C-alpha cells in the first residue's frame, strides 16, 4: 500500500514509530494527484508549496515529540471554507478572484491540530447541486466510473478521499452535500448536528441548514476528524455550548441491545433494487450483532423536498445578495449605471442553477407570498423535526439508504432540475431537523458502483453514529476495493 492510501490512524502509528515522515506522506499524495487529478478533477486549486512547507514544519514538530491529532495528515478543503490569503471561489465565477483576509474557524482548528492542506476541492457553485456539475471550474468525475458524477455538492472533497488524493477532507452539507457524494464515492461522510461545528468562514448557502463535516476513509478517521472540528465558537451565534466527547472512544464498541429504526417512508417505489438489497443486507448484519431493527414512521417525509426547496432558496436569495460587484469578486465591465452594474455582474457571475434558486427564493419571500411559502414551510419544518424527535424516543438510531440510486451519468440530469433534486430525497430531512447523520459504504452494484447507507441520531448524538457505523464497518468485512484509475 502506498502512504496516500492509508487512513489517519494508520499514518499516525507510522509517524509515531518514526517509520514515515510528514514530508513523505505529502509527497505521496502529490504523486497520486499528478497521476489522476487530470481525469478526476477533485481540486479547483492545489496548494503544493504550502503543503510541503506545512509538512516540513510537521516533521520538526514530530522530531520535538509534539504530535497533535492531525500532525502531518494531508487534508483537502472544500472551496467553500475561507482560507486566509488563498483564493476561495465557492465554485463560482463571481468569486473567482476572491482572497479572504481571514480563516474559517474549521481551518484554524485543523491547522492547530497539525493538518497539512492539500488544496481547495471542487464543488457545485455555491453548494447548489447534487453532482458537482454546476461548478464554474468544470465537473468532477467519479473515480469508480469516470463517465459518472461523484455526487455533490461536495463532490471534489469526496473524490479526493476516494481516489487517495488526500487522507481526509472537509465538506459542507445543506441537504445532503456530504452524505450523498460520500455514498456515491464509497467513503465515510458525516453531517454533524446543526451548531456542533462552527460555520464561521463557511460561505453561506442556507444558513439554517448548512453544516461542515468530514469525509474519511473509515469511521475511526471520522471520529478523529470530529474531535478536531467539533466545539463551541464565540464567533457564531448559533454555535452550541455543549460538551464534546472523545468520539474515537466510541469506535469499536458493540451495539448489543440497540434499537435501529427503519422508516417505512424511505423504502419507496423507485428506489434502486441493488441499493435496497445492500441496505437490507446491512440490516441483517446489524441484527446479527445484537441490534434490534424496528419499523418506524416519519409521517411528514413526503413534504421534505418541498419544504427544503422553499427554505434553502429563500435563505440563499438573501445570503447571495452581497455578491454585487461593489466590494470584491467579479465586477462586470462597461456598466451604464449602478443598476446596470448589479445586473451585468450577477448575470455574468452566477450560473443557471444559482440564478434559478435566487429567483425561487426571492419569489417565496415576496410580499403576498411569504405566508403561503416561507411561513408555511417553516411550520411544516417544525413538524418534520417533531417526527424525528418522536421516532428517536423509540430507537437509538435511524437507518436509511443515503441515496435512492447509485451515481448517475454526467449530463443525465442537468436539464431536469426536479430529477436532480430527487437525488437528495433521503438526506434533506436531516438538515431540516438539525440532527446528525453519517453515510457509510455498504456494498457495490453489480456494475461496481459504491452504495451507501446513513445512520441518523438525535441532536448531539454523533457519538452514537460513530459507535454503530464503526460496529457495522468492522464486521461487514467490506472488500477493500479501490477505484481503478
Amino acid at each position, binding site marked *: 500500500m502506498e502512504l496516500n492510501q492509508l487512513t489517519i490512524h494508520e499514518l499516525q502509528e507510522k509517524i509515531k514509530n518514526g517509520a514515515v515522515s510528514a514530508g513523505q506522506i505529502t509527497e505521496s499524495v502529490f504523486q497520486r494527484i499528478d497521476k489522476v487529478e487530470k481525469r478526476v478533477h477533485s481540486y479547483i486549486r492545489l496548494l503544493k508549496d504550502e503543503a510541503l512547507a506545512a509538512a516540513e514544519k510537521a516533521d520538526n514538530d514530530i522530531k520535538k515529540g509534539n504530535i497533535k491529532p492531525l500532525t502531518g495528515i494531508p487534508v483537502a478543503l472544500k472551496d467553500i471554507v475561507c482560507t486566509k490569503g488563498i483564493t476561495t471561489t465557492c465554485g463560482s465565477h463571481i468569486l473567482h478572484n476572491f482572497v479572504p483576509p481571514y480563516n474559517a474557524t474549521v481551518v484554524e482548528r485543523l491547522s492547530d491540530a497539525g493538518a497539512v492542506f492539500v488544496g481547495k476541492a471542487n464543488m457545485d457553485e455555491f453548494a447548489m447541486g447534487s453532482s458537482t456539475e454546476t461548478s464554474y471550474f468544470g465537473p468532477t468525475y467519479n473515480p469508480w466510473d469516470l463517465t459518472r458524477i461523484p455526487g455533490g455538492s461536495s463532490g471534489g472533497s469526496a473524490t479526493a478521499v476516494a481516489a487517495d488524493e488526500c487522507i481526509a477532507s472537509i465538506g459542507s452539507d445543506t441537504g445532503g452535500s456530504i452524505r450523498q457524494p460520500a455514498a456515491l464515492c464509497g467513503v465515510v461522510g458525516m453531517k454533524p448536528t446543526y451548531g456542533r461545528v462552527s460555520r464561521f468562514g463557511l460561505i*453561506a448557502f442556507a*444558513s439554517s441548514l448548512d453544516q461542515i463535516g468530514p469525509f474519511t476513509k473509515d469511521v475511526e478517521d471520522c471520529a478523529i476528524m470530529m474531535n478536531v472540528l467539533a466545539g463551541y465558537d464565540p*464567533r457564531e451565534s448559533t454555535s452550541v455550548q455543549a460538551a464534546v466527547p472523545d468520539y474515537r472512544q466510541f469506535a469499536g464498541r458493540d451495539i448489543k441491545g440497540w434499537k435501529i429504526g427503519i422508516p417505512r417512508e424511505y423504502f419507496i417505489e423507485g428506489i434502486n433494487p441493488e441499493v435496497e438489497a445492500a441496505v437490507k443486507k446491512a440490516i441483517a448484519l446489524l441484527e446479527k450483532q445484537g441490534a434490534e431493527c424496528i419499523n418506524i414512521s416519519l409521517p411528514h417525509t413526503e413534504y421534505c423536498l418541498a419544504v427544503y426547496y422553499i427554505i434553502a432558496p429563500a435563505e440563499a436569495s*438573501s445570503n447571495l*445578495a452581497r455578491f454585487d460587484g461593489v466590494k470584491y469578486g467579479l465586477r462586470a465591465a462597461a456598466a451604464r449605471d449602478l443598476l446596470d452594474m448589479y445586473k451585468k455582474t450577477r448575470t455574468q457571475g452566477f450560473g443557471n442553477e444559482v440564478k434559478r434558486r435566487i429567483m425561487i427564493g426571492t419569489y417565496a*419571500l415576496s410580499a403576498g407570498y411569504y405566508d403561503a411559502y416561507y411561513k408555511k414551510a417553516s411550520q411544516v419544518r417544525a413538524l418534520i423535526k417533531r417526527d424525528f424527535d418522536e421516532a428517536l424516543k423509540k430507537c437509538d438510531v435511524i437507518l436509511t439508504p443515503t441515496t435512492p440510486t447509485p451515481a448517475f451519468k454526467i449530463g443525465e440530469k442537468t436539464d431536469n432540475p426536479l430529477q436532480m433534486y430527487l437525488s437528495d430525497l433521503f438526506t434533506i430531512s436531516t438538515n431540516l431537523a438539525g440532527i446528525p447523520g453519517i453515510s457509510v459504504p455498504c456494498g457495490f452494484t453489480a456494475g461496481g458502483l459504491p452504495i451507501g447507507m446513513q445512520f441518523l441520531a438525535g441532536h448531539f448524538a454523533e457519538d452514537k453514529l460513530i459507535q454503530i457505523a464503526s460496529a457495522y464497518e468492522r464486521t461487514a468485512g467490506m472488500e477493500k476495493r479501490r477505484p481503478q484509475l
Partner: protein
Amino acid sequence: MDFETVIGLEVHAQLLTETKIFCSCSTKFGGAPNSHTCPVCLGMPGVLPVLNRKVVEYAIKMALATNCRINKSCSYARKNYFYPDLPKGYQISQYAYPLAEHGYVLLDVDGEQKKIGLTRIHMEEDAGKLMHDEHNPVSYVDLNRTGVPLIEIVSEPDMRTPAEASDYLKRLHEILVYLEICDGNMEEGSFRCDANVSIRPKGQKEFGTRTELKNMNSFRNVQRALEYEIKRQQYIVEHGGAIVQETRLWDDAQGVTNSMRSKEEAHDYRYFPDPDLVPVIVDDEWVEKIRRELPELPLVKRERFVNDYQIPAYDAGVLTADKALAHYYEEVVRLCLSPKAASNWVMGDVLKFLNEEKRDIRNCPITAVALAEMIKLIEDGTISGKMAKEIVEDMYKTGKAPQDVIAEKGMVQITDEGALGAVIQKIIDASPNQIKDYRGGKDKLFGFFVGQVMKATQGKANPQLVNELLKKMLAG
C-alpha cells in the same frame, strides 16, 4: 373645508455603544473612510454576526423611559434591498418580533397633558455612506457607519399639528440624551426623523392618504416640512385632486417637498427571520436591573423642581431641558439655599453668556460653587444686585471666584452707617434747592439723591441702607 392633520413619526437614534451591534469595530464618528471596519461589517463571505448585548440594554432603557411593554423574547429579521452602502445586501433589523411595543410620551399641549402613543421600538444596524466625486462619474463607499447600532422609535399617528410633532421630537431627544444612550446630534445624523402626514376633513374617522417625508435634519426643518406638506395636501384636496401615497424629500433651500418615489416603486423588503442570530431573551431580572439604574427622567425632574424649589413651571422646564444644566442648578441651590435666586442667575446671566458663545454648561467657566458664593454675597449684603451683574460677567470671562473679582475691583459695599451718613450730609449741604423742593412735596427728587449717593460712592453703597438714611436725613 376645515381639515385636521394626522402626523406619525419614525425616529432613528444612534446608540452610544463603544462598538458596533454585530462586531467589535469602533462606532466613533469621523474616522478615515473604512478605518472602522472588519470582515463582519464589510459583509464578506462566510462571516457571521454576534450581538452586542449593550445595544439591547440601551434599547431597554429607552423602552422603559417611554412606558413601553418589553417583549420577553424578540428576534432579528433581514430587510433585503440592494444599495452600495449596504454591504450584505440586507439590513439586520427587527420585524415581526420587536423589542418593545405600546409605549407613550407625554406632551404639554395648551396647558394640558397629551399622550402620544409609541407603536414600537426596535433595534437595527445603520448603513454606510456614499460619497460622490464632484468632477468624475465615480462614487466612493465609506462603511465606517455600517453596523453602528440604531433604535427605531415608531409613533402612533397621534399628532395633530407640526408644533406637536416638533414638541414630541424634542421630548424623545431629551429622554435619549438624559439616558446617555444617544448624543442627539441631528447634523451628524445620530438622531434622524421621517414623518408620515395626511389630512382629513374635521370629524372624519378614516385617515386620509399619507405621504412620507424624509431628509429633515433639524427640529425646525421637521416643522417647516410638515407645514409645507399640509398646505400642499390641502391645496390638492381643495382643488379636487387626490393625494398620492409616496415618499417625498424635504428641500431645505427651496422650502418645499419633492416626490422621491411612488408606492409602486416602493421596495419589497422580503423580511424574514435572520437564521444567523438567535432570539434575544429579555427576562424580568434584566429589565428590573436596568430599571433600577435609570436616571431621573426629564418629566419627573421638572415636577420635582416645581414642588421642591417652588419655582415656576417655565423655569423648571428651562432648567431641566439639559440634564447637566439641571445638575448645575441643583448644585448652586444646595450651596446657597436660595432656589429662586439661583434660578434667576442661571437662567438669566449664565445661560445668556453660554448661548452667546454656543457653549455647553459642562464647560461653563463659572462653577456652581462660585455662583452660589456670589448669591450668598448678595444676600448677606456684601454686594448689591447691581454690582453682582458686573461681577458675574467678570467671573464668566476670567473663571475667578466672586471674592477675587470683588477684591480686585475694590467693590465691597459700604454698609457703615457713619461713613454713609457723612456722604449724605455732604450732598444735602451741596444741594439746598433740591432739599427745599423735596421738602415742599416733590417726592420724585428722592431718586436724585439716591443717584448722587451712588455716584459719590461709585455704586458701592448698600442700596437699602442708602434708602433708610436718606429718608431719615431728608425729612430733616
